[in-house]
Structure formats: C-alpha cells, structure tokens
C-alpha cells in the first residue's frame, strides 16, 4: 500500500519549532554523528525524511524523538543548517500534542499567547480560590502562618495537593496509554507479547531516576544539570506530598526535613539559572532555538523557586502576612505549572521519555535481525551472476 505524501504537515510542524527541516538533503551526517543512533533506531535522518514527506502515521508511531536528548552534535555536523536536533525537539512537542487526548496541548504549542493566558487565568483563579478558602474556612487571618490556625493550614493544602496529583496522574496516564497505542499497537508495531513488557519493566524506574542514557551524550553538563533539576524536583515533590506538615511548622527550623529542602531548592535555583542563561547566550547548539513554551516553563519555574524561598525566609523572619501572600503567589505559580505543564506541555516528557526507552527495548526484542548479505557494487554483482550462467 502506497502512502500518500502530505505537503501540509511540514507547515503544521513549523508551529512546533521545525523551521529548518526543509533544508535537509539526507546526507546522513546527523545519524552518523549521533551517539545513540543504533539499529533499529537510526535517527534523526529518517524522522526528518518522514516529516519532509508528511508521513504522519509513521511519525506518530515513532519513538525516536524520545530517544534523542538534543546534545546538538547532529546540528553541528549538518552541512545544510537543517537543525536536526531542533527538528527532533519539535517532533517531541508535536508528539506531546498528538498523545494528548484533550487537544489542550496542541493549542498551547501552536500559540504561546493562549498558554500564557491560560497560566494567568489559572493563577488568578488559584489566588482567588485560596484567599476565599483562607478567609472563610482557613485561619481567617493573614497574620497567622503556621500551625492549625494558619491562614492556609497545611492539612487543607495537603488534601488539595493530593487531589490535584490524582487528576494530573489520570490525565497523564490517558496520554501515556495513547502513546503506547500509537507506538506499539500501530500498523508497524511489534506483535503484542506480554513477556517483553515484564522483562523490561525495570527500565522505567532506572531511566527515570538515573537518566543514564542522557549521560552517554558527549556533552556531560546538560545531563548533570538536568539530573540535578529532576532530583531536586523529586525531593521537593516528596517533601510536599508526604512531609508538608513538617515543612510548614515554625518558626524554628525542622532540620530533619529542611536539610533536604535547602539542598533541593539550591539545585532547582542553580539549574533554572543555568538554563535561562544558556537560552539567552545561545552558545550551545541545544540552546540556540527556544520555543515559547520553553520560556514559559522556565519563567514559571523561576517564579516558583523564588517565591518558595521568599515565603520560607519571610516566615522565619516573623513577617507572617508577607509570608502568607508570598505563599499564595507561590501556589499561583505551582498550580498552573503542574496542571498545565505536566499533562499537556513540556513536563510531560517525564513520563514519555522513560516509556519510550521501555517501548524501544520491547521493539528491539521483537526484531529478528536478518543476516546481512555481503555488500557488493551492483555492477559487479551483475557481471558475477552473468559469468556464472
């Protein structure tokens, strides 16, 4: 069955940042330069080709963008300036939109303005909601910050956190199932067998926690910063989800939890500052192109980190009202960040990447590599068979 080429897909992907893919003339230098490009996943050239030809079904079933960590080696080797690294990045954005069942992701990626608007709306709603809750059901006074009488008691925030986490997990899980369906159950996916899924399950936590694949890039700094950001985030996540009560005591410092909190905060701050600085300076290939969503993500993360530090410092200084207001601003950042970024935008890769690695291992298993014929120039082969006859 012949596949129909689609001239419009390339225009669609432009919204996701694939501006230069048209320049590619398939020399294959990128695939040769990539340290991850191995049978059966030779990339990024093939993905670039499918994109140029608009073979949407192939792209949707493609795990390769998730196997790329955008070290930028390919873009540096490209003789045509086709930016294969950025093309893979844009394909990750596009795939995130494709996996998303709600269509919100597509909206955000195609228009930064809509995403900013959504972030603002949600932030204001969160702020108003928290004020309304605090004045009616909470401590009712902005001058109380900790303890049961706090304006925003940790017990209530705790329940709010868990319900939010539940909804997000649900959304993300639906998208993950869609990813599995597109990549593993499509026309060219492997035949479904349960055993490989069990056999490789350990890959999920390993890749999630160590990001050891990222470490194989020739550039080590991005991996280190990314790992620092991820571990800091996970630490904060654990502290907030399980130890929120201990975090919000005071004004004396509970060193058992806050030691971890300080380390994680420092990690977040350093990682965010380096990332913002990198995208401004554009000295590294992976920082040259920034999509609107990259900036929204980083700015939100910076706001959250700074306000998080702020509320903590103000609290210990005894400025409870200021601490409460900063805390509300902090949550006004946290809620849109989690609700919008995790299932629908940049942060969804926390699930898609480990899953892709897991699926890739299963696909590799399913391929029985045929024994290769010796390579021969076509002419010689003809002459050879001719003389035999």
């Amino acid at each position: 069955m012949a596949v129909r080429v689609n001239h419009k897909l390339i225009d669609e992907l432009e919204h996701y940042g694939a501006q230069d893919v048209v320049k590619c003339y398939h020399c294959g230098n990128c695939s040769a330069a990539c340290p991850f490009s191995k049978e059966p996943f030779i990339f990024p050239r093939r993905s670039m080709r499918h994109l140029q030809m608009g073979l949407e079904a192939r792209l949707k079933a493609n795990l390769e963008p998730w196997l790329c960590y955008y070290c930028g080696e390919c873009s540096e080797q490209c003789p045509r300036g086709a930016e294969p690294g950025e093309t893979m990045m844009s394909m990750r954005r596009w795939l995130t939109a494709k996996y998303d069942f709600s269509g919100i992701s597509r909206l955000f990626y195609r228009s930064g303005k809509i995403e900013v608007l959504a972030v603002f709306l949600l932030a204001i709603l969160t702020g108003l909601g928290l004020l309304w809750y605090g004045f009616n059901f909470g401590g009712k006074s902005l001058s109380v910050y900790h303890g049961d009488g706090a304006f925003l008691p940790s017990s209530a925030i705790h329940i709010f956190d868990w319900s939010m986490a539940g909804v997000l997990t649900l959304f993300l899980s639906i998208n993950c199932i869609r990813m599995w369906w597109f990549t593993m159950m499509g026309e060219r996916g492997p035949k479904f067998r349960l055993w490989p899924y069990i056999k490789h399950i350990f890959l999920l936590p390993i890749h999630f926690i160590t990001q050891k694949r990222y470490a194989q890039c020739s550039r080590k700094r991005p991996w280190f910063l990314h790992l620092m950001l991820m571990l800091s985030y996970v630490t904060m996540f654990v502290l907030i989800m399980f130890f929120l009560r201990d975090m919000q005591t005071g004004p004396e410092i509970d060193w058992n939890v806050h030691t971890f909190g300080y380390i994680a905060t420092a990690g977040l701050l350093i990682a965010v500052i380096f990332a913002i600085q990198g995208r401004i300076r554009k000295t590294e290939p992976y920082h040259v192109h920034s999509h609107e969503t990259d900036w929204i993500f980083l700015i939100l993360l910076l706001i959250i980190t700074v306000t998080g530090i702020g509320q903590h410092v103000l609290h210990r200084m005894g400025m409870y009202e200021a601490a409460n207001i900063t805390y509300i601003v902090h949550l006004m950042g946290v809620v849109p960040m989690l609700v919008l970024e995790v299932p629908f935008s940049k942060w969804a890769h926390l699930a898609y990447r480990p899953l892709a690695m897991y699926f890739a291992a299963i696909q590799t298993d399913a391929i029985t590599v045929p024994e290769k014929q010796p390579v021969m120039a076509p002419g010689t082969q003809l002459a050879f068979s001719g003389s035999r006859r």
Partner: protein
Amino acid sequence: MSGHRIGVYVCNCGTNIAKTVKVDEVAEAMGKLDEVAIARSYKYMCSNPGQEMIVNDIKELKLDRVVVAACSPRMHEPTFRKALETAGLNPYFVEMANIREQCSWVHDDILEATEKAKALTHAAVARVAYNEPLEKRSVQMSPATLVLGGGIAGMTAALELADSDQTVYLIERKDVLGGNVARVDLTAPYLDSARDILSELITKTTRHSKINVMLGTELVHMGGFIGNFVCKVKDAEGDETELSVGSVVVCTGYKEFDASRIKQYGYGKFPDVITSFELETMIRKGRITKKDGTLPKYVSIIHCVGSRSEEFNTYCSRVCCMTALKYAHEIKSAIPSAYVDDLYIDMHAFGKGCEDFYRKSSEVKTMFLMYKKNSTPQVKLADPKKDDCSMLITVQEQLSGEEIEIPADLIVLMVGMEPREDSTDVAHLVNISRDKDGWFIESHPKLDPVATTTDGVFIAGACSSPKDIPDSVAQARAASARILARISMGEIWTDAVYAEIDEELCSGCRMCNDLCPYTAIEFDEEKKRSHVISAVCKACGACVAACPSGAIKARHFTDEQIYAQIEGVL
C-alpha cells in the same frame, strides 16, 4: 654500404631506465656495430647538456645519423629533431628506440631487459641508415570560417571570429537565429533572462559586417582540407552557393527526448503531463495552467526523462537538474499556494552557483523525492470523488524506503538531450565521427575538446554532448581562438611524413579512396589516378598496406626502413 657515421645515445632517464637496463652495456654493444662512430650513455638525454652533447658530436665527429635510445618518441622526438636541425642535419635523420615504456618500465629482469634494449637500439641503428632527408611543407590558410548552426554556440563563435575582423558565414537551417535557448524563459541558477542574453547576441550577429548570416540554408557538400575547404550550401529555394573557407565550426546543437517513448508517464495520453519545453512556453506566455485553464495545486517535476536509463540514454543530460530547480522557483513565484514536488534520481548540482540554488530550492519548500534509476514512477488518474488532485504518481521513494503516492495536477517531464536526427548527415559531410550515442567526437576528450580528427573542423556546444549555456559559449570561444591562431600564422605547416602515390604505378582502382579514415585521398577523374592531399594525410599507412599495385609509399616509413628495422631487432 655507403658508410654512415652514426651516433648512438643511451638515456638513463634518471633511474627510470638505468635501474632495469644496464645502459653502459647497451652503449658499449652499440659502439661495436659497423657505421657507429660513437655510442654514449647519459643521465638525461633530453636535458640541455644532453642535447648539446649530440650537437657537438655531430659537428666534431662528423655524424650524419643519430639514434637516441630513450623514452617514447611521442615525448621527445621533436626535441631531438630540433637538436639535429641546430647542428645542421636534416631533422628526419634521428631515430628513437623506446627503451623506457617498451622496456624498462615493463620488465623486472635486468639481464633480459638489457638484451631487449640492445635489440631495440640495434633496430633503430639499422633503420636510421635508410632515413631520407624530408622537408616540411606549407599550405595557405583561408581566413574565412563557416559556422554551422545559429544557436548560442554558433553565434558566439561567429562573433568572436568576426570581432577579430575575419569573414564568417553563419548558416542556419531554420528561419530564425537562437536555437534551443530561444525556447527558454529564464536560465539557472541565477534566473537571468534567456531572452535578454539572446536578443543581444542576435542583434550583434545580424548587424555585424563581417558575418554573413544565411538563414534557411544548409550545407550540402564539403571538400578540400584545412585552410582550403570548399563548401556548397543550399538555401530554401534550392540555390547553391560555393564558399571557400579555411575552417569549419559545427554548432548544430541537440534535440529533446521524445517523452511519449516512456509509457509510464502517459505523455500524450494525459493532457496535464507536459515536457519541460512546454512548460517554458507557458512561462513565456506568463501563465502556468492545466489544460482546462485552471491553476494547478500540485505540480510534480520528474527528472531524467530519457536520461540515465538503461532503456533509453545512459548518459546524464547535465542541464535538467538545475532547470528543474528553476521551475520549482518559477512555479512557486507564479502560484505561491502550489505545492511543488521534485522527483529525481540524483541531484547533479555541480556548476557554479548551483549548490546554493539547490539549497534555496529546498528552502522554498520544494518536496524532493528520490526515485531509483531504472524504476520509473507511474502516473495514473486520480479519483475525482476522493482526491483533491487530478493525477497520482506512485514511486518507490529511496530516502524513506516507502512506496508513496504523490498528488499531482500538472506533471513536468524533464526531457533529456539527444543528438539531432541529422547528426549522421552532418558528421558525414564534414568528415567527423560520432560516439555510440550519436554525439560528435572530439579529438581528445580532455586535452583537445573542440577539435576533431579532421584538421580545421571544430565542434562546439551541445552537438558533442549535453551542455549548458556557459559550457557551450566557452567551447565556441575556444574553437574561435584555435581558428584565429591558425589564421594569424597565414599558412599551415604540414608534417613531412605522409603517404605518396606514384602515379606511374597507380592503376586507379580507388581501393584506397574509401579506406582512408581522413578522406585524404582524392581521385583525379581526368587522369584516372588517385592522389594524396598531404595536408590531410596523417600517415597511418592503411593505404600503403592496401594498395594492390604497391604504388603508395609512406614517407619516413619506406619498405627499406621497415625491413632494416626488423632485421636489426632480430
């Protein structure tokens, strides 16, 4: 024997000869021969000291014949002939023994190689005794030139010659000048207007006082030889004119491949499958449309139509790739909403500015799709209910490995170049050869690309192989430069080595007439005898061997000389 005084010089050629041939031993052996007055070996005979050694020996030892055992005579025979001339001897009194290419370079065994070198040198010594004094001759060079074909190459050649104040007859079969370039709108890769280029050339050509433009005219006969050709041309009314010219430039160009020969494209069957020249016509008229007058949404350009295929022409037509890219630009600028697909085998973007042009074509979102040599894309009609296009092209796409379907409303076939149907007649008329594909053959593909095997007849432009405008113009100017150089000499020196027919012995059987590959033998109807035009003869010896009466003698290759050489080697 009359007692010659022969000098034998054995060259070491650095170590080229000396490492396999014991040169001193060869010289010593030669020194013992009768008539050899002196035999020496020397490091480089072709060097100035080497030549001086010969000159001095001739003067001091009264030598009258010289043998140089060294490299191939192709290289240094002129050098040593000159040395003899300097010393006051007839230059044809030198004989070379090739003990490098035919001995030292092809053998390992020193003893055997030395023996062979001795034999070869001995043969030369035996032969040189029979060498006769020969004189070079000259013929007058007519400064007029006949240019065949009024395309871009023909006009350029004519103008180059005429601007140097030489008479040019430019004959063109059609009623207009311009050739194939006149069918083109813009040129790749700089998108300059072909019309502008051409109209300037045509105006200059037609107005030039030294150029006789003869439209609707063709060559019907050419006789004579370099410097003295007599050409008969015939105009549309059938009137013949005789022109005396010194040189001929053939610029007869090409014709396009007939696209209907490839069934898969449906050319002639589907109205919106057109050739590149038909698209040019559309572009020149200012509107790219389908047959029904509507604008195409999808335009596909297919490369290598008739070129680079086992079934049709195996060669590359050189200009189609860049022309196709030019179309991509022209279509995109005429219909910005149109999608342009470019189906190619390999993108040949070798010319100046062409790689940049290719990149730019990518940037305007031309979809480049690679198909495999000898696996022709298939064109079929689309389903009007289901598809938003009128045709579909199916092809095995190489860079993705996918079998794909391409929507198309207009399909442009990049037809390749072929020799014109009349190229056989032209080749016969001006006595030049054609290659397996029918293109005219140059004297040497690299070192002599505009000359032919017939002295005084030059080829320029796409009549010798597919060529773009810059290459055609360069060839036209190159041919003109060669002709002008000859004209400036006023006369042509011909080699003293040529065949001669003894009219007393010739029976007039004319066997040699058709045998001569250079048509150097003419038949005198009055005397009923053949005779050789020495200016045309290349001394190949074919007639000498064939003559049943033994009436033909090759100067410098007489029977006595050959027999002596054979005896010498044995």
